[in-house]
């Protein structure tokens, strides 16, 4: 049987699968953009990093881009930088993501981008 999901879990699911319409629907029905799901994560922490329009939507609704992952200390900027999604990286910076945040390995977003060999992201983040 399909179990009923909490609104927070539905929102993180829609964010993680890149379902922008569903995210828009849930946010306009007053699901809080900074509430955590069953696993203690907010939508922006688990969103499909390559989906920049979706990231923009979450940020416009006031998503906090500087929440670190409780397990590894990664911020969404670390994750976007590691995966090499330049447009999402730029957008996060525009919405005040901290380019000097460090994860539990003491790495900044620019460091994880360098490890993953994303030259364009490294070049962009080096300016901060």
């Amino acid at each position: 049987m399909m179990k009923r999901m909490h609104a927070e879990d539905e929102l993180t699911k829609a964010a993680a699968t890149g379902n922008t319409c569903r995210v828009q629907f849930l946010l306009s029905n007053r699901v809080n953009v900074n509430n955590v799901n069953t696993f203690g994560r907010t939508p922006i922490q688990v969103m499909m990093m390559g989906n920049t329009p979706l990231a923009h939507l979450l940020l416009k609704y006031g998503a906090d881009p500087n929440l670190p992952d409780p397990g590894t200390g990664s911020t969404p900027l670390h994750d976007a930088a590691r995966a090499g999604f330049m447009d999402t990286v730029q957008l996060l910076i525009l919405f005040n993501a901290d380019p000097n945040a460090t994860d539990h390995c003491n790495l900044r977003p620019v460091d994880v981008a360098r490890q993953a060999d994303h030259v364009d992201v490294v070049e962009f983040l080096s300016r901060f």
Partner: protein
Amino acid sequence: MEQESVVQYEPVAEIGGGAYGTVYKARDRDSGQFVALKSVRVQTNQDGLPLSTVREVALLKRLEQFDHPNIVRLMDVCATLRTDQETKVTLVFEHVDQDLRTYLEKVPAPGLPIQQIRDLMQQLLCGLAFLHSNRVLHRDLKPENILVTSRGQVKLADFGLARIYSCHMVLTPVVVTLWYRCPEVLLQTTYATPVDIWSTGCIFAEMFRRTPLFCGESEVDQLGKIFAVIGLPSEEEWPNDVTLSRQNFSPQNPQPITDCVPEISEKGAELLLEMLTFDPLKRISAFNALDHPFFTE
């Protein structure tokens, strides 16, 4: 399969679920990277896991050894004993944070340059030809499980799971999209590797259109939408062993494919029609599609 619990991977969100089990986006604590956890609950007895499950997992592990660039990596397989009768098998796959749906949504007007479509299609067909040469069907190819990395590398996901799941499926109605489904599956007749080529054809058209080609709301509606474009198959072509008769559909002639996909090139249109061929035996194979003049025009 290691008898260990999946502590290395911490779920961060449920991203899929259904009759067979649940899919999670998770974090690999060692590398810090995201992974996809796909688990299936399997009934066990004193002999352990059913042979069918062991076989299917072994097949996926064998595929992994080829390290093919156009399929997602299978990073780990874990078996967790839940009760005396039930074991949870978890497959840990590489997670790519962009699918083809998102990729196409982001493309500004007037759409993808044909050179880019050629590149995406070539990679998609390479991945498919690899799976088919190893006798693996995808069976559910759609933009949501065609992943595209930030470097533009295409990776197929969710292949070979259908058989693992179907062995253990509790029959619950799960909403699945019909839009990429081929006529032989819609008509519930026998099927094989050509099913994936049909889906690839639908996706090929969608790369130009940036909106799905056939959006049916039921099996019959889906077939109706297909025949409105490719024409109603002849009496001779209609399979014998199906319950749905040809008389349920109104006679229609094939429409020029360029009416549906005006942006396509001449060779592209030829390839598309060879993929959207009603008779699965006459449908082009992944290998032959890769040799099509569309890729060299």
